[in-house]
């Protein structure tokens, strides 16, 4: 008997995009449409109704096999189809074509804390969340102490989670999820939360889970996490598998696709670029672009030239106590620095933020810029909004310095002394 645990053949997922104003279908519209179509048929029996629909293949023709105990990373740019694939594998949505065979229980962590209820206490939420993730009551009771210890919330067990700090909340949520024991574990970007120390703990726990012989599918933008956890990777782009194989090889290909695909300006309105965002967020990013020192839009800038980041968004009402920020990550997905707008209120309408960068900060290489907005009724998170390439040539045309390692340019000063007498 082969030890293949997941075999997928020719998986496709089709979405129908409706070009209506409203996000949701309503019965009223449906009745009106039917009426119109009927009237049209009576007036002009042969004309077919104009279609306000468009099909979009989020995934097409995916075939792969995953063996028992393998840890497989799924990587790709925003909108490559990673999340859709995970949703199909975890049976949240069904594919439009193809077939998948899986042996064993599947548990998915597409977002930690799903089903947490703010009014309930930590203890109650552990049981509830455990049950939602597919654990039996016995199983939860057995692991209860372990979960509490892992989350470091012993003192707040009987406090409603609405009083938890966001750090505690996330720790508790991950702790429950980390103690699942399915044959197949599907993880999507959960490590983007919590502090550095807790992230490390989570990575350790996932490593332990995988070493226990279970199969782990892991999606992340953090290539460091991917390469330390996964031995094999699948690279998706445009809903197709571009490459699969050993992690290092696939990551190299991924970086190459990034290089090709960078534009100096990105339209941020498509929902698929977002992660864990509110669909009806009161503020949404709409556009991002990079201006070089000549005020031209470009994704490539020279190391020693200043550049400007322009972020635009739309607020559908006046908003207080909210903030937006950006982050700069290395090409491997490692966060370098971030910054938040000092202005805590956002006025209704289009808002433009301009951030000036000094020259000689980022070393030559690829960078990813992410955006986030947070506040009451606002969650908009775009982890990969735009890619920035810093080139190692001065704006005057001649090579500045021969080489740079790392990601930052430190304003170092060397002092060199030569002693004649040795």
């Amino acid at each position, binding site marked *: 008997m082969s030890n293949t645990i997941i075999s997928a053949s020719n998986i496709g997922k089709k*979405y129908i995009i409706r070009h209506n104003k409203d996000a*949701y*279908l*309503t*019965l*009223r519209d*449906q009745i009106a449409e039917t009426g119109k179509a009927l009237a049209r048929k009576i007036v002009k029996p042969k004309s077919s109704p104009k279609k306000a629909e468009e099909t979009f293949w989020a995934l097409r023709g995916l075939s792969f096999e995953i063996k028992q105990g393998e840890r497989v990373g799924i990587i790709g740019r925003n909108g490559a189809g990673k999340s859709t694939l995970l*949703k*199909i*594998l*975890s*049976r*949240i*949505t*069904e*594919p*439009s*074509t*193809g*077939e*998948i*065979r*899986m*042996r*064993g*229980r*599947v548990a*998915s962590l*597409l*977002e930690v804390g*799903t*089903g947490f*209820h703010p*009014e*309930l206490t930590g203890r*109650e939420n552990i*049981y*509830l969340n455990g*049950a*939602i*993730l*597919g654990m*039996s*009551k016995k199983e939860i009771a057995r692991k209860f102490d372990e979960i509490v210890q892992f989350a470091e919330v012993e003192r707040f067990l009987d406090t409603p989670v609405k009083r938890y700090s966001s750090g505690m909340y996330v720790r508790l949520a991950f702790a429950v999820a980390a103690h699942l*024991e399915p*044959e197949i574990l599907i993880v999507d970007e959960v490590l983007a939360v919590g502090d550095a120390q807790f992230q490390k703990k989570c990575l350790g726990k996932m490593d332990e889970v995988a070493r226990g012989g279970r199969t782990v599918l892991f999606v992340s933008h953090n290539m460091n996490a991917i390469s330390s956890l996964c031995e094999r990777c699948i690279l998706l782009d445009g809903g197709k598998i571009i490459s699969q194989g050993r992690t290092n090889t696939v990551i190299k290909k991924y970086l190459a696709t990034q290089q090709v695909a960078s534009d100096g300006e990105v339209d941020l309105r498509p929902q698929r670029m977002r992660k864990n965002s509110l669909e009806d967020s009161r503020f949404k990013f709409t556009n991002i672009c990079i201006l070089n020192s000549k005020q031209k839009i470009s994704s490539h800038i020279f190391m020693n030239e200043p550049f400007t980041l322009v972020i635009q968004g739309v607020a559908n009402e006046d908003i207080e106590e909210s903030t937006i920020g950006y982050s700069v990550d290395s090409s491997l997905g490692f966060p370098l620095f971030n910054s938040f707008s000092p202005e805590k209120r956002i006025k209704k309408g289009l808002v433009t933020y301009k951030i000036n960068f000094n020259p000689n900060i980022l070393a030559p290489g690829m960078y990813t810029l992410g955006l986030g907005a947070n506040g009451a009724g606002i969650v908009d998170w775009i982890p990969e909004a735009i890619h920035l390439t810093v080139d190692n040539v001065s704006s005057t045309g001649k090579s500045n310095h021969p080489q740079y390692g790392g990601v930052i340019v430190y304003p170092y000063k060397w002092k060199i002394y030569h002693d004649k007498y040795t």
Partner: protein
Amino acid sequence: MSSAVPTIIIKPGKGTVHYWRELWQYRELFYFLAWRDILVRYKQTVIGIAWAIIRPVLTMVVFTIVFGKIANLPTAGSAPYAIMVFAALLPWQFFSSGLTEASNSLITNANMLTKIFFPRLIVPASTIIVCVVDFLITLVILAILMAAYQFAPSWQALFLPLFFLLALLPTLGLGIWVAAVNVKYRDFRYVIPFVVQFGLYITPVGFSSTIVPEKWRLLYSLNPIVGVVDGFRWCLLRGEPALEPASIGISVFISLLILFWGVKYFKKVERNFADVI
């Protein structure tokens, strides 16, 4: 649970092969969701319980005055008008709140539907459990009311659980169906309060079904709650006319039909919930 490793086959246009078995496997989640809803409902204990008491009592008072005193409608048995109304309010309130809660359940739990797999039928079904608790509270109020009027129920009260089951069937069936329709058509939920309000007048809650002319009785029983209400009154009140087998039979048949139809529709569309919600 881990004894046999199941093979899961995912294919388009086809739900799971073991639909009911899977539902059974997730029964604990059903308890937990019901438990969560009850806990949240009664966390602010005073308001939670008070609401369950105030609603039926006020309705009863209004109905007794409007139908009993102003319109001067007759009672069939020897029970005071207030108790006759309250006996009918029991199943009616269960039906109307169950239908309302269940119909919104999928939308309120949307984030669970888009993040995690589990048999979706659990969500609307578990919300009805909260209404069962409310029902039990209302039952206690009825007992108090009967004691106050010094009115003892008949021995037929033993059949009450059966008629409760009969109330559960259409509530569950309609609730499941409406929950699924609500996911697709977001404005459908505005229809429900209207249906509930309208239903109150075509169901013999504020009056006795004996005032409906004999020849229309069978037609009247097409409303499945009519059979339930008559059943409740027959169980709880002395001197009520005997139940008509034909009319109860129609009630049972219609209720089963609604449940079957609701579940069938739900099964057909549930695979797309995550995409459209």
